[in-house]
């Protein structure tokens, strides 16, 4: 008697090596960056998540679990709410100015004008001096009574300004310092973008009679879209991380005018030793940043590519 056994093809789950087929070389090259990412970003975020669920004594020792209470406490605190709004306003004010200045500096350097050395010195120097040094210089420059800026204002007959103890000037000062600090990075991003634009395109446009303005608005600016997207994301991130100018110049004042969320997180963690709440505040800020950056990436998505 013949028996026929029907054999159904068995679909085996692909093994891990099969899944990684073709990815090997990429992973090797990515490994250092991935390790760094895990060590210095993801692990810390995981640590913050854990810390945000704890209660801590004022010595920084975890003494109990808080569940989500720290989030509730942080988000219902009117001061932190104000800090989040203020950080958002700071980003809205800072990002466009920083982009405009960074692009202008990049165009000047690209054009190789006579002012290159000045631009380089002005834009790059704060990156190398370090923010505490720059901020310290600012503190002296903008002192109400003995500062150089007020001495100049007074010398030309203008009234002195209490830069650090009046709301709007203090905000301008903190933002200005932060912009000055970060504009160098933006400039480098745009310089890289400008270098990547094929010169033939601009040459072709010139042959068609395009002037400098038309060239800039119809060729250069659209082709800088990728750099623009990257620069916006970087500038947004930096805006929400403004800390040193506030810490050294205004300490959140006057009357809360520079009480940014980042400063409040620092103060809650390292002045009030409330690590649980500070971690919850950090994660709330992180979540908000992810949403904002996701929107930015979507709005600024580039749909073209060089062939």
């Amino acid at each position: 008697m013949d028996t026929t056994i029907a054999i159904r093809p068995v679909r085996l789950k692909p093994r891990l090596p099969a899944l990684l087929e073709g990815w090997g070389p990429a992973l090797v090259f990515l490994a250092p960056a991935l390790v760094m990412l895990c060590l210095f970003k993801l692990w810390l975020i995981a640590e913050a998540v854990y810390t945000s669920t704890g209660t801590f004594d004022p010595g920084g020792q975890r003494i109990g679990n808080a569940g989500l209470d720290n989030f509730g406490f942080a988000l219902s605190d009117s001061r932190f709410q104000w800090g989040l709004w203020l950080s958002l306003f700071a980003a809205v004010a800072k990002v466009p100015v920083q982009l405009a200045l960074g692009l202008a500096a990049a165009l000047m350097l690209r054009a190789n004008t006579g002012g290159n050395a000045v631009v380089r010195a002005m834009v790059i120097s704060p990156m190398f001096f370090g923010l505490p040094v720059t901020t310290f210089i600012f503190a002296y420059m903008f002192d109400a009574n003995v500062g150089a800026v007020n001495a100049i204002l007074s010398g030309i007959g203008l009234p002195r300004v209490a830069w650090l103890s009046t709301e709007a000037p203090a905000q301008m000062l903190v933002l200005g310092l932060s912009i000055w600090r970060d504009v160098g990075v933006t400039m480098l991003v745009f310089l890289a973008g400008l270098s990547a634009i094929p010169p033939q395109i601009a040459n072709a446009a010139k042959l068609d009679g395009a002037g400098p303005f038309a060239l800039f608005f119809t060729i250069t600016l659209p082709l800088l879209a990728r750099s623009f997207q990257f620069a916006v994301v970087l500038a947004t991130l930096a805006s929400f991380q403004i800390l040193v100018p506030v810490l050294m110049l205004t300490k959140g004042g006057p009357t809360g005018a520079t009480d940014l969320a980042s400063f409040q997180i620092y103060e809650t963690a390292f002045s009030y030793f409330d690590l649980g709440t500070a971690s919850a505040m950090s994660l709330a800020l992180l979540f908000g940043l992810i949403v904002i950056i996701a929107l930015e990436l979507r709005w600024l998505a580039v749909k073209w590519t060089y062939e």
Partner: protein
Amino acid sequence: MTRSAIPFEPSRRDVLKGLSAGLAATALGGLSPAFAQADPYAGLKGEELELLIWDGGAFVDNMMARVQERWSAVGGGALKFRKVPFGDLDRAVRSANQGGIGPDVFLANAPNVITYKKLGLIEPVTDMFTKEDLEDFFPTVRLGSEIDGEFYGPSTNENGQALYYDRQLTERYGLKLPETLADAWTWDEWLRVFTEIQAAERKRRGNEQFFALYPNMGNTGLFFSGSYPRSAGEKGSDAWKMVSDDGLKSSGCLNSPEAIKGLQLIQDIHHRHGIAPVSTQKDMFYNDQVAFFCGVPLYLAPIRKARPDIDLATAPVPYIRTPIIHTGSFAWLVNRQTAKIGDAKLFLKFMGSPQGNDVVARGWTSPPIRKSMVADRPEFQTKPMALFIDSITEWSVPRPKVPGFSELDTMWSRLEADIVSGGDVKPLADDATRRIDAQLRRYG
């Protein structure tokens, strides 16, 4: 071979020698407590001690090198230092024992002693000091480190407060200022003089940026400016206390009607009267941009260096209702978890002794911590510096004893800055007290 129990036959002389040796031994034995007292560091093992200190550069390094010399001379071991930036000192002490046993000794801001006691970080050293020692300390040295009847560590130096000024300037306008605490003026009296001097000097110099008073606010926490609301109340009142008796509540004290008067004065001297600059640059007096400088003895050396030509004088600081100044400096504390507790406690005994304290107090150009030591510091026995000793003795109080002093001080600085910037004092004080209380509740 047999061995005799006594290998030789003792002579009468030998017996006499033995007897006298026995008598001497008995006498010495009987005197042993006296000998122990003569060696205050008996029991010292000469172990290496690690000290957590703030990084003050070569100045502190040199001072600690001299401490090491004297400590070694009494049998102490090597001193090793773990240095942290000044602003990180409190954080470093609080977290010293996380991840293992931390340094053996902490140099900490004295008002934080109560915090560290509350967190179980420090060991009392009451047994290292006699009653006479404790009574010899200036009041704030003892009061600042004494909690629940236990003494936790001596300070590095004392301070005192007074107004520095150039007598040539006041004599120009025929002004006679108080020179002793008994003649001290209230703010009302001072405001008249401040206003007059400022107006006259501005006119003479043709410079609107000359001010009467540098009140030393902006980066000194409540050391100087905390006196304003406290001084507005009677001794023992809510305003004077600044916080409740248990140290866990500031509402009702810091925002009491009397305290608000003091807080309002902070704003008024900057705006309404306009006699104080909003600048927080301490060198305004050194640069001859202010007439009076509210300061501590430490500032004497830089003043002498910057303005050697002036006839330096001092006057008691103004008060509203009750004379009060904050004093106290850094305190030496023993880490409760150290394995070298014996040597660590003896190190504190040494640093509280005239021998040990002299190095540090002189290093800071400040008064010593003991009354008896002032005799060896002639500069503090005559004008202008004697006033600092008087202020320590008669007017000084520790900063408020609050388990979360660091938190209080941070919020105070914020409140002070907001008041100086012109904010509405009462709502600011109410908001500050609410937030301070929320932080202090964690220590309850």
